[in-house]
């Protein structure tokens, strides 16, 4: 799709072993992230967002989850292209934290409580870039400065618990950027933060991404955050990509009933009063997300879809090209 993809995923299917069955948590997912581009992965709880990012990073739980199909191509800093699904162990560790930086929702899961912030940022710099202890530490302090942590040399000597939630998230961003990765994967990096702190972190990530020309895969369930930070958006539902395209197009002219329903049911500042005074209920999507254990036959959204036809329940719809780089997994995308 885009000129220079850093990450190019094609036909990814990731399965989990549950009892004696294998359940697809991500089904036939294709997406690409280009240099300098931010792609948002959005969807409700359990839709497969984190499983997608874990698949890219090779962090699926051993013996339980595995990539069953698909290719995940990554262009490394060196220009060399690797297929992530084929490499393992040592080779993957060379990529992770080096070519790919990672930020998670809860900063404390990526920070080790017994090491100082500075040591933790310096470690990947020593390992991947082969710098000396002293050089790495001075780089680490520079990174802390990049992410807007005041008094970085003092902060470098502190432990994670001595920092506020927002500062910790800044520190994990500094750690993710330690080795100047070309791709940043951020999984709900602002979900645990207050809204004024979230605004700071979104601003920071957007700025760093532009300055460094990184590609960013940003996982979130918040449509407002998507509009704020992303160029393109991938909407997931029950393990499937249901819609994909530029944020401007998908949000102003959604071509999948699920995206349409989501856009309608988000309460919006400034319009809620009008609805309330008119006595109009908030628009909703009826029913609830199906369990992956017994997904419907055809379109996974069919049981909740107001536009459902009999044909919808018969076959899994293909991703239809709706033009202008927008795709919808709905057989009625033209009529709705």
């Amino acid at each position, binding site marked *: 799709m885009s000129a220079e993809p850093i990450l190019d995923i094609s036909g990814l299917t990731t399965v989990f072993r549950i009892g004696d069955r294998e359940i697809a948590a991500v089904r036939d997912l294709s997406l690409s992230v280009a240099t300098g581009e931010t792609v948002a992965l959005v969807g*409700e*709880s359990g839709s497969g967002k984190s499983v997608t990012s874990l698949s890219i990073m090779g962090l699926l739980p051993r013996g339980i989850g595995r990539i069953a199909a698909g290719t995940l191509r990554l262009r490394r800093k060196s220009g060399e292209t690797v297929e992530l699904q084929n490499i393992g162990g040592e080779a993957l560790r060379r990529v992770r934290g080096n070519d790919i930086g990672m930020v998670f929702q809860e900063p404390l899961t990526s920070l080790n409580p017994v090491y100082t912030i500075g040591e933790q940022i310096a470690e990947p710099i020593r390992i991947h870039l082969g710098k000396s202890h002293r050089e790495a530490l001075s780089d680490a302090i520079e990174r802390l400065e990049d992410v807007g942590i005041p008094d970085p040399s003092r902060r470098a000597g502190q432990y994670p618990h001595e920092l*506020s939630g*927002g*500062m910790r998230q800044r520190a994990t961003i500094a750690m993710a950027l330690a080795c100047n990765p070309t791709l940043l994967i951020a999984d709900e990096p602002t979900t645990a933060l*207050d*809204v*004024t*702190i*979230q*605004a*700071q972190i*979104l*601003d920071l990530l957007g700025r760093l991404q532009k300055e460094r020309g990184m590609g960013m895969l940003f996982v979130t*369930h*918040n*449509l*407002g*955050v*998507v*509009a*704020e930070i992303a160029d393109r958006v991938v909407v997931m539902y029950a393990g499937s990509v249901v819609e994909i395209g530029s*944020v*401007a197009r998908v*949000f*102003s002219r959604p071509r999948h009933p699920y995206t349409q*329903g*989501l*856009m309608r*049911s*988000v*309460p*919006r*500042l*400034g319009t*809620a*009063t009008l*609805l*309330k*005074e008119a006595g109009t*209920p*908030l*628009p*909703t*999507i009826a029913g*609830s*997300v199906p369990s992956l254990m017994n997904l419907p036959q055809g379109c996974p959204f069919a049981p909740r879809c107001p536009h459902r036809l009999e044909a919808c329940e018969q076959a899994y719809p293909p991703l239809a090209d709706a033009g202008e780089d927008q795709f919808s997994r709905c057989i009625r995308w033209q009529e709705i």
Partner: protein
Amino acid sequence: MSHKFFLEVSELGKDFAPVAFGRGPVVRAVQNVSFNIRRGEVVGLVGESGSGKTTIGRMVAQLIEPTSGSIRFDGVETTSLTRRELRRMHARVQYIFQDPFASLSPRMTIGEILVEGLDIQRIGSKSERVAKAAQALASVDLPPDAISRYPHEFSGGQRQRIGIARALTLAPELIVADEPVSALDVSIQAQIVNLLRDLQMRLGLTMLFIAHDLAVVEYVADTVIVLYLGRIMEMAPSRELYASPQHPYTRALLSAVPSPDPSRHTARQILKGDIPSPANPPSGCVFRTRCPVAIEACAGAVPALREGAKGHFKACIRDDLD
């Protein structure tokens, strides 16, 4: 009813003692909070994490005792109730929790969960209690067979419906809903918000609705109170507050909410710095360390909560802002 307000909260304060061996500073969770709720009114309580929303909600629901101030419920001062009176009061005020998973006992059937409150209050005969439970289930749109099933068999949204049904069995007059939709997905959130709003209007419930999602509060509340570090920054009819926020904090808070409409992107105002610790709040205006328009005088005295336009209160000394 002779008195004007159903709930009168005045000069409410709550301090929490330090945890470690009584050393360290006390946490000033709530300070000098006053507001009133009319019968049938919904008041929204918004603010960031640690601003004191839950603490106020728990004091109003008589689950914890205030350190100072008073709460009058239907004309009765509640800070000096006897045990018996308190138990009776508990039937009139119900609390809905954020986490539908943690708040339902996994070993009890839905039926048992629903009649528990009636059992404790010794209301009605056994069959009357079961009938009340069934009625509550129906009012939250759950099927009758849910009564013999267990919480784990339900989705998050359904569990929140069960939590609401549990609160309704006692026919309460006041409901404190503490982040009732925060743990839910967007598409389910709207269903629960509609349900709460519908029940509130149908049953004429009075409600204290706590949330950090400003848009959800806008839809539910008639009046909104904005908290910061345990103090009220602004209080106004919902329409007023969203259309013309007066306090610098409210303005920043509203501006920080990301909008899903790409066309509506305006320059965002980003507050600098972190929220200070409630164990050591700034002198004067608690917001001044992050306030973009703070002046020297802001550090002096705590700004009074003053009425500007009718019913619109703010605690900020700067009246010279547009």
